[in-house]
């Protein structure tokens, strides 16, 4: 059974309101608002899109179009811990794919999927620019670099959370 994750709370809506107030008059204010909303709610569900549409006077269809265009925006909630395996070229030639596979074996989720308890989301991400540490894995903001890819490393990392 999957748990429904509580996304839209009164406290978060307040933060959205403050953000809308700052960006309402700005030219091209939609992107800053969406960036902030993604941060506040961890995703941008329809309920939030409606509020943004009303406040910025932009059709909700257009907002939906923008959200679905960019990789960083999501409509569905993600896990508390986002495991991002860098798939930039430098990491890829150092066998980063094996790290993704190990997480899949360990948690039963493929890239882009979230575990049923909303604890982990697995992402194969774009180059994080830490090529000197290749291969690199991020769990939220924590960086794990210079992995050996000999197996078992991801299990150890996952166990920390």
């Amino acid at each position, binding site marked *: 059974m999957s748990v429904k994750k509580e996304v839209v709370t009164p406290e978060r809506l307040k933060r959205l309101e403050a953000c809308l107030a700052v960006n309402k008059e700005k*030219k*091209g*204010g*939609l*992107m*800053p608002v*969406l*960036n902030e909303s*993604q941060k506040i709610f961890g995703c941008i569900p329809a309920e939030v899109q409606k509020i943004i549409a009303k406040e910025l006077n*932009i059709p909700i269809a*257009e907002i939906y*179009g*923008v959200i679905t*265009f*960019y*990789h*960083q*925006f999501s409509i569905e909630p993600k896990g508390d811990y986002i495991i991002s395996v860098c*798939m*930039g*070229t*430098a990491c*890829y*030639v*150092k066998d980063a794919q094996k790290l993704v596979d190990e997480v899949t074996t360990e948690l039963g989720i493929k890239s882009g999927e979230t575990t049923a308890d909303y604890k982990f989301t697995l992402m194969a*991400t*774009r*180059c*994080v*620019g*830490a*090529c*000197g*540490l*290749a291969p*690199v894995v991020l769990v939220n903001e924590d*960086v794990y*670099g210079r992995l050996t890819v*000999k*197996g078992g490393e991801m299990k150890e990392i996952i166990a920390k959370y």
Partner: protein
Amino acid sequence: MKALEKFENIRQQTIKNLELRLGGKEYEGKRHVLICQGTGCLSADAEKIEAAFAEELRNHNLTDKVDIVRTGCFGYCQVGPIVIIYPEGSFYSRIELKDIPAITQGHLVDGAPVKEFLLPESIEADGTIDDFQHVPFYKIQKRIALRLCGLVNPENITEYIAFDGYKALGKAIFEMKQEDVIKEIKDSGLRGRGGGGFSTGMKWEFGYKSQSDQKYVVCNADEGDPGAFMDRSILEGDPHSIIEAMAIAGYAIGANKGFVYVRAEYPIAVNRLQLAINQAKDFGALGNNIFESDFNFDLEIRLGAGAFVCGEETALLNSIEGKRGMPNPRPPFPAVKGLWGKPTIINNVETFANIPQIILNGASFLTAIGTEKSKGTKVFALGGKIENAGLIEVPMGTTIREIIFEIGGGIPNGKKFKAVQIGGPSGGCLTETQLDTPIDYDSLLELGAMMGSGGLVVIDEDNCMVDIARFFLDFTVDESCGKCPPCRVGTKRMLETLVRITEGKGEMDDLDRLYELAQNIKASSLCGLGQTAPNPVLSTMRYFREEYEAHVKDKKCPAGTCVELLEFFIDETCKGCTKCKKACPVDAIMGDVKTLHVIDTEKCIKCGACIPVCPFKSIKKG
């Protein structure tokens, strides 16, 4: 001019203390401990190292004799976390928290660099210690764009001012006409460092000549090429140089508003840039009436949201406007009709980082360096199968051999160099025979690669070139915005063909089809993403045709990467230790103790679990 005098006073006040970072000069017995706070070193605990040094200094009552300075990236990411102590220029590499008391005692208290923790290359055979500038990694570098990265505290504007910061902006506003600024940039031969290599001066001239009530300057910091991180490092290490350059550009074309479009994946860069913008405004170098002149220029940061195509200039502008980041056909070029329909010039971070130096020292400063048609330097991000990964800046015309084998230290683990992929998903690869080609914009195009943003990923004999091509196409297919069919459909078909080949289902006709499709996509795509997407395939087919043919004809992957084409087997060096048998998850290995083991290829899932456990390296794949 009073405002400029204020800056000159700050410069003179500050530089006295900073000169000791420039090569051995003493100043009142002081020392500076520079701690790299670039993304690479930060993720290796640079922050804790800073705290530990601070505590040690307090314990030894050294706080007024030793300054701790947080800097941007030193470039030598491979040996991070890095600490440099001046005036000696001692380079401490791979520092751990437990090393800090010893370094403090030895170097900061007793005054002798602690050899044990120094970068090994910086110690000569006779035991003398070299300034880090002389070690192979730095020796042939020439730093213009990265001039202050790793030398100043990016969070402190006075350090930037001390090293002639904002002097170029003052010179432009008070001593030069708009045309003069543009002429200087044109004469310098500076070309766009973000990939295309278009003349920066000409771009500015177009912007200047476009008549409008409103113009914009945009900095493209949407660095998306996998394997490139120079823009991030410049924003993290020297954000003021970008602010100054954008203000100069604003002055030259007559714009009073600028935007920096940064990837949201670069939080440290965004924070430091915002801090720098605030400081520049406080000091009167940005905002209304800059240096009390009548020139106004304001700057705002806009974040991307993870779309590679937004590195294309028209797509980037659409994204700033709050739309889907899709490109528009050009012409009209942004310099004529850009952001909200107004003339806009867009330059890349590294391009901007060159500007203040050119204005300050004249066009000849840049023309003295480089090749006939490519002036100045280029920053490269070295990564992949290389000893010294990191960020380097070399004169145009440096050869790949110098970069990979002199600066980069060659290939690790005694493996053989196979190719270097340059320019990310838009670029191509160069092989052993081209190692001695002096690289610039034009020589790379001739060889079927391109400068791109300057990501250099080294590939060794263990990597399959067909798989590398597949990897890049996978990337472009995912990032194609879908606006034009050649890119949306064409790259997808190319990817399908490549996947077929890597799975051993390819035919010889596939190679011709790939080639033809690639030509069509190049010719008919709307923007740079599509026009260059086939490059990795074309260039690997050009130089590694035999590898493609091995996949198609013999159904073999010579590098042993494409799993579908591999078979695992055990050779006669097997001693029958049974370790592999125990490691096999599907019981595909048979054999008794002390007898030769055999892999049942029907059962084997090619997971590779047996290879690392074999003490005799008897398990082979091919």
